[in-house]
């Protein structure tokens, strides 16, 4: 037969009920505290593991770097010396083009430089920036164009990337009097530098 659970009857065992609740609460508190401790420890463990892996990765990279730093440092110095790094120097570019034109004896040359645009965001926050140049020049022979482009690659204070070139014979009527040009070349060239990045 089930006991009659009235307040009057429960009062008979209130001591035991209080004891039971106290024991249960004590046990649950212990369990919750231990679970909380373990959860915090697991987080710390994951964090420590990630830090360890990161430290290992950096150390491995550093060891590789120790081997390869010499050539890379020289290459970086070369790029820096060439003016590939940092702000573009358009005035210098114009001067370089004029100088090559004069050295090559090219009669007519026109160019237009578009505003600088980012083209790539690479590792470690470096950002490649490009200024597109449309170049038109009259030539006696196609070798003049190849020489002009080679001189530009060698002398320009930016990395020059040839995108397109149209080479066509000048119609007889378009040749200016006394001029010797036979061909006209219209090229598109990217002038690429490394920006500061973010």
């Amino acid at each position, binding site marked *: 037969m089930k006991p009659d659970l009235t307040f009057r009857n429960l009062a008979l065992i209130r001591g035991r009920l209080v004891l039971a609740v106290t024991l249960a609460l004590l046990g649950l508190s212990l369990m919750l505290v231990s679970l909380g401790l373990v959860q915090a420890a697991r987080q710390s463990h994951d964090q420590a593991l990630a830090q360890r892996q990161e430290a290992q990765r950096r150390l491995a990279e550093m060891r590789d770097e120790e081997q390869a730093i010499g050539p890379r440092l020289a290459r970086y*110095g070369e790029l820096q010396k060439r003016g590939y790094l940092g702000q573009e120097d358009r005035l210098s570019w114009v001067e370089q083009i004029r100088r090559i034109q004069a050295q090559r004896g090219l009669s007519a040359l026109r160019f237009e430089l578009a505003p600088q645009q980012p083209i790539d965001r690479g590792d470690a926050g470096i950002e490649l920036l490009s200024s597109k140049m449309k170049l038109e020049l009259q030539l006696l022979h196609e070798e003049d164009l190849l020489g002009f482009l080679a001189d530009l690659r060698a002398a320009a204070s930016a990395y020059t990337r040839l995108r397109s070139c149209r080479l066509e014979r000048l119609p007889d009527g378009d040749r200016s009097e006394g001029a010797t040009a036979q061909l006209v070349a219209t090229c598109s060239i990217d002038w690429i530098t490394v920006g500061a990045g973010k």
Partner: protein
Amino acid sequence: MTPQRLLLLATDRLSAHRWRAGRIEVEAEFAGDAAGLEGFAQYLRQHRDSTFHLLAVQAEDSFQLEALPRTRGADRNAMLARKLGQHGHGAALSVALSLGREKAGRRYERFLLAAVVGGQQLEPWLLLLAAAKIRLAGLYTLPWLAGSIGTEAAGAAPLFQLLTLTGAGLHQIVFENGQPRLSRLTRLTTGSPQEAATAVAAESAKIYQYLLAQRIIDPGAALTTVVLLHLRQLADYRGRCADSDEIRYVFTDLCAAAKGQGLKTLPQDSCSEKLFLHLMIRKPPRAQYAPAALRRCYQMWRLGLVATGAGAAILIGSVLVAGAQTLEYLRLSEHIGALRVRTENDRQRFEAARRRLPPLPVDIVRLRATVDRYDRLARQATTLEPMLQRISRALDAVPGVSVERIDWRANDSAADSGPGSVVAELVARLPAELASDPRAQLDAIGRFGAALRLDRAVAVSSLALPMEIGSSHSLRGGSEPDGGTGLSPDAPQFSLRIVAMR
């Protein structure tokens, strides 16, 4: 362990016993007069921390089997209360024991209704028990306790009677299918073994006649009669109780039965109270007569025990879980410590390696990324020369062809470091003397294309020809100066697309 105390109510006296690990000691005896009742009340007050079990041996029980419709809850309680009232004629001490449902018919639930006859003799004692608010586990009578002993002695007999002596007299209890069916108490004058043996023989015969009259036993069938006795008195019983066609005696050693039940204080004569007192603790029966009000303290005490046990179980379980978690915490802490030491070692080695590096203009990571990116760009670089050289070789192979225009462009692949391609669209003219010879024109263009294809990395396709001879194009002709071929009289012009992988 809570103290266990046994109360034995026989005729007009009540004796109190202490039970401890199978031993029973008499603590006190109380007469039914005012002094005895007062002494009993005081005894109860002194032992409020005990659990009491009451055995009333002076009472007779009446039993009745009933099949009742299956009901639940309040309806069931009301129905059973009504049936018990009818059966016990309003007796306060009654009980209904469910025997399960019938296997056929309307499948009613079978009940054994039982009531204490003459329960008013117990009232003064029960009032004291109620007033003392002690823990009373139950109020029992012999029929409920003796079933297991009798069934064991009677063997397979479904119907048998058990006779045993107590201070109240000779008890005769009939069992059918393990349940008590009839209970009688015969008072003895002297209680001597000889009188008891004579009474056993006489009462057994009466019970048999009664069962026969009630058609409970078939005529001619023998009734197994179990007699609990001390072996010292066996001769007295054998001399007076001879087996007959109607009655087959099974004399059972009371001491052996008591030992079998774990009783350590063995009876000295054939009185079996101690055995049944012991059975109240060792094998408490399913049915007992104490009303709920009398057992309230006991029920609540048990509930308190269950609650405390549950609380303790939760505590123990939690401690075990917490222990396991603490071990896990210690293991993790140790591992974390080791990881931190190794991480610090790696950092120190990293810093040492960094110090060994030459002075750098920028952070080493940025330096590496910058150089690597430029190197990738350089690997992708394309120049005009290879395409012009191919065209020049083709012009050498087919003299007379003159180039009008070259459109060259670099196609970058989707992949950053992929090979990509360069495309050149070439517009050229054939020698004017071929203007009237379409076959010679196509032959010259074919040779020009073949010269370009000598480079395996080059694919050549025609964009425009002087004359389209394919079946998917229209072809015109006539007698005009061009010979009616539709060809221009000027030098014929053609156009090719040259694609070269870098």
